[in-house]
């Protein structure tokens, strides 16, 4: 039963991928390529490329991609549902307790110490993406002379518009995609 296999494979992916999308990739590889042999390694690397190029969480993207390639629309539904069932149950429980106890002063003290960490984590994600955007490299491999001026310009203008006019995030992201592609096309770089 292919669908049942896929369902259990993705329940495990959902249950054990702790710590964000990239943690899920080796798990999916293990389940789909190594254990069940449902895909070749080459197909799997295509999957990662596509999952990274498209919006949405990587594990949902890969669940959909695997499901579609192996079993069509029913596969998409089975894999995605399998992937989110564990986190759905766990987070619902956590949410319940959080809203029950969050006003307790002791809980407030503990939560208070998590907030600076979360700010740092979000900042770190932002810095990584900025480096990828400006240099197409991680911070360790950045070469200053490789800076991409179009992206730098877009970043500065976008940040200015956000700070000054409180523009919506979606309009900024889509706008920067359109404007940047136009600039490169006009420069004859595409």
């Amino acid at each position, binding site marked *: 039963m292919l669908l049942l296999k896929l369902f259990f494979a993705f329940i495990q992916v959902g249950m054990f991928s702790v710590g964000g999308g990239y943690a899920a990739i080796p798990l999916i590889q293990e389940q789909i390529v190594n254990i069940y042999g449902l895909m070749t390694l080459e197909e799997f690397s295509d999957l990662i490329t596509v999952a990274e190029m498209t919006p949405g969480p990587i594990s949902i993207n890969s669940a959909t991609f695997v499901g579609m390639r192996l079993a069509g629309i029913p596969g998409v539904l089975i894999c995605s549902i399998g992937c989110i069932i564990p986190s759905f149950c766990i987070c619902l429980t956590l949410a319940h307790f959080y809203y029950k106890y969050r006003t307790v002063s002791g809980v407030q003290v503990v939560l208070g110490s998590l907030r600076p960490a979360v700010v740092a984590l979000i900042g770190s994600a932002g810095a990584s993406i900025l480096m990828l955007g*400006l240099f197409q490299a991680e911070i360790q491999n950045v070469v200053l002379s490789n800076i991409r001026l179009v992206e730098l310009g877009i970043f500065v203008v976008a940040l200015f518009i956000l700070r000054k006019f409180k523009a919506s995030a979606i309009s900024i992201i889509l*706008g920067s995609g359109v404007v940047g592609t136009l600039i490169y096309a006009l420069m004859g770089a595409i």
Partner: protein
Amino acid sequence: MKKDYSKLWTLFKSMFMLSACTFGGGFVIVSLMKKKFVEELKWLDEDEMLDVTAITQSAPGPLPVNASVIIGYRMAGVLGSLTAVLGTILPPMIIISIISLFYEQFRSNPYIAVALQVMRAGVAAVIFDVVINLAKNVIKTKRVLYIAMMIIAFIATYLLGVSAMIIIFTCLGIGLADLAVTLYKKKKGVA
């Protein structure tokens, strides 16, 4: 009752739009959610959004789905969770289903490659905007402990590559120690 349905619709619509436009990892969508639910809709307060992020990071599964479950639960109970999760997973499901049928063409299209590259600059700007606001509020607490934790945590994750889980659990430990000290001082003060 009618009001609740309109809230569910707004919840679904917001999650759908955010998910459809989120390139990059889970923290990108958290920044977008913060902008949408805290700054635009004013459904959550800022501390709450940070707590939710910490919880989603410590639970297994995709971060955006986890965050949708909790925010949905907060707005409209279990039904809200279901609505929010549906909104979050539908866009990638639709987009990938279509792309998986002709991903060769998609992968080799130069316009798509350039658009995705320049969009990163826009995404980075959105995250920086959110982080500036958040960092300001941490600094406003005027607690040296919190400000130091923020700076050290940033260096640890960004420059040293320490995983987010370790950061969260270390800070949880510091928080518990902080709580113990606070309680001890209080006890001493009373006695």
